């Protein structure tokens, strides 16, 4: 390890940071536009062309606003909570692969650079852990505000996170069985090619070998749990303006509120990137390696595929938000404990048996 390696890591971190910030800027605007369109409205259209700078203007406003601190807050935790919300959001994205590896010669040594913050061999566990830490931020924010509505929001976050993290984790276990790894890079690599490789029928060559096809049940459960985990409508009981004012961020204003807002949208992007990585084949896609130069087919196209798939999943997030009203609290719990977790368990057993038989043969053979 020399200075080049350090530089490469620093550049990766900076690029991922910049990518997430720019994505959030666009994402908030796109979401407002999409939801507005779905409700016969116009949406932001004043700041910049088509209102594209609206988020920037909002962010600047929040940046210069007074940060009111209520008298009864637990000050240390109160200012720590927004940071705690933001850091795991950034960290989650570090393990998501954006494209295939490529090699360059730097400083006289040939180096393999992966388009990924780092490839953890326990990537999936790490992702689940980070999303759990994000919930702590909400709970701490709710508790340290010293006010009843944030406290209610924090309590709701606790219950909701426990319910849906269980379903989420259980839904991912069959994926790990199937792909044989917890590393996100390995999971993406396992999804390369087409269904023809799996069954040997050339007809299936048009169907990509994405996890969504064999693991459809996992996909559905993971997506629902992901929406709940990011506290998005229709599972946004943690914020629920109409019931508990603003939930955990009722007492936050200015930049601290902006940090929560940022974290929420980064989490949404993370969740879409994870759905893409785990179920939609990550950066896999037709690369036309025979017709295009390597830097396009190996670099630009995979990143484009990854971003396109992620945006498609994000669109579904927005679509669901524009469509569904918020669940009642007992409905949320019913869906989590009586539907998703049993479904995830049954699917886990079924997938384990099928994968086991495929791997080790039938017990009678």
């Amino acid at each position, binding site marked *: 390890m020399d200075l080049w390696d350090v530089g490469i890591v620093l550049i990766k971190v900076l690029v991922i940071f910049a990518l997430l910030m720019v994505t959030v800027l666009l994402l908030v605007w796109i979401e407002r536009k999409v939801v507005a*369109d*779905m*409700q*016969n*409205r116009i949406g932001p259209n004043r700041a910049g062309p088509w209102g594209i700078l609206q988020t920037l203007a909002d962010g600047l406003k929040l940046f210069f606003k007074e940060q009111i601190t209520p008298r009864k807050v637990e000050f240390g935790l109160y200012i720590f909570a927004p940071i705690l919300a933001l850091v795991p959001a950034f960290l989650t994205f570090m393990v998501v692969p954006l494209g295939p590896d490529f090699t360059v010669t730097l400083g006289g040594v040939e180096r393999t650079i992966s388009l990924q913050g780092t490839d953890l061999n326990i990537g999936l566990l790490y992702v689940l852990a980070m999303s759990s830490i994000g919930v702590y931020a909400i709970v701490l924010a709710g508790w340290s505000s010293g006010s009843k509505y944030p406290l209610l929001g924090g309590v709701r976050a606790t219950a909701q996170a426990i319910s849906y993290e269980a379903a989420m984790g259980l839904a991912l276990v069959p994926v790990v069985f199937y792909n044989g790894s917890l590393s996100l890079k390995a999971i993406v690599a396992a999804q390369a090619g087409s269904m023809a490789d799996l069954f040997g029928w050339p007809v299936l060559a048009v169907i990509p070998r994405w996890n969504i096809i064999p693991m459809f049940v996992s996909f559905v459960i993971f997506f629902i749990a992901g929406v709940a985990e990011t506290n998005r409508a229709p599972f946004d009981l943690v914020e629920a303006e109409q019931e508990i004012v603003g939930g955990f961020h009722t007492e936050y204003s200015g930049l601290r509120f902006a940090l929560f807002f940022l974290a929420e949208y980064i989490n949404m992007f993370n969740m879409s990137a994870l759905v893409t990585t785990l179920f939609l084949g990550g950066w896999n896609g037709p690369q036309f390696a025979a017709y295009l130069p390597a830097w396009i087919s190996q670099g630009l196209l995979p990143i484009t595929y990854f971003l396109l798939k992620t945006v498609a999943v994000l669109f579904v997030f927005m*679509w*669901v938000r524009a*469509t569904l009203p918020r669940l009642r609290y007992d409905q949320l719990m019913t869906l989590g404990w009586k539907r998703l977790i049993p479904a995830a368990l049954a699917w886990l057993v079924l997938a384990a048996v099928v994968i086991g038989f495929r791997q080790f043969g039938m017990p009678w053979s």
Partner: protein
Amino acid sequence: MGMIGEFIKGLRVTSRIGYETVFKDGQLTTEYPKEFREKPQRFHGRHVLNRYPDGTEKCIGCELCAGACPAHCIYVRGKDNPPDAPVSPGERFGFVYDINMLRCIFCGLCVEACPTEAITMTHLFEMSVTNRDDAIYTKNELLVNEDGTPNHMFDEDPLADFEELKDGDGWMRATAPGGRAAYEGVIAWTPAAGKERPAEKGQTAEQDRTDEAEGEA
């Protein structure tokens, strides 16, 4: 599986609305200061006091509007016409005419009470003021100009729809009993300054009206 069916039905509704908003004219919001929504013909907007084509005022200072007003927001004082230069064709004219727009409920009873169709309502609706005194419209603001365009309290009004201002007489003449198009046997619009409005279907023509009046006399 009823829940999933309903869910998909909901998603279809939002996607259809989104498609209509983006690709067809499904967008309901208008960008108000830039574009004005077309208002209904009988919209109850701000009042104006009309003139006859020769420039004389229609108001005869009879105070029936003030009597009819349920909000007591109209204050009228009549005065005898100066014989050498009459302000209105009748004996008297409206010397003072104030409407307190903070009290007005825009019911249009004054328009119905008016015997000469002097007071009518327009499509003007931008009446925000910065102090309470300005909310009292006096005769200066209410009386239309010689060409029939309504006066405005403020010379520079960036929010006013100047196209609409030209139609000062307003369709709300229709609420005056003399001008209701569907009202059988009732005569056409009384002539107003800046207005050429022919008799509509169901109305008797202006010529018939004068004949009728002469016949009665």
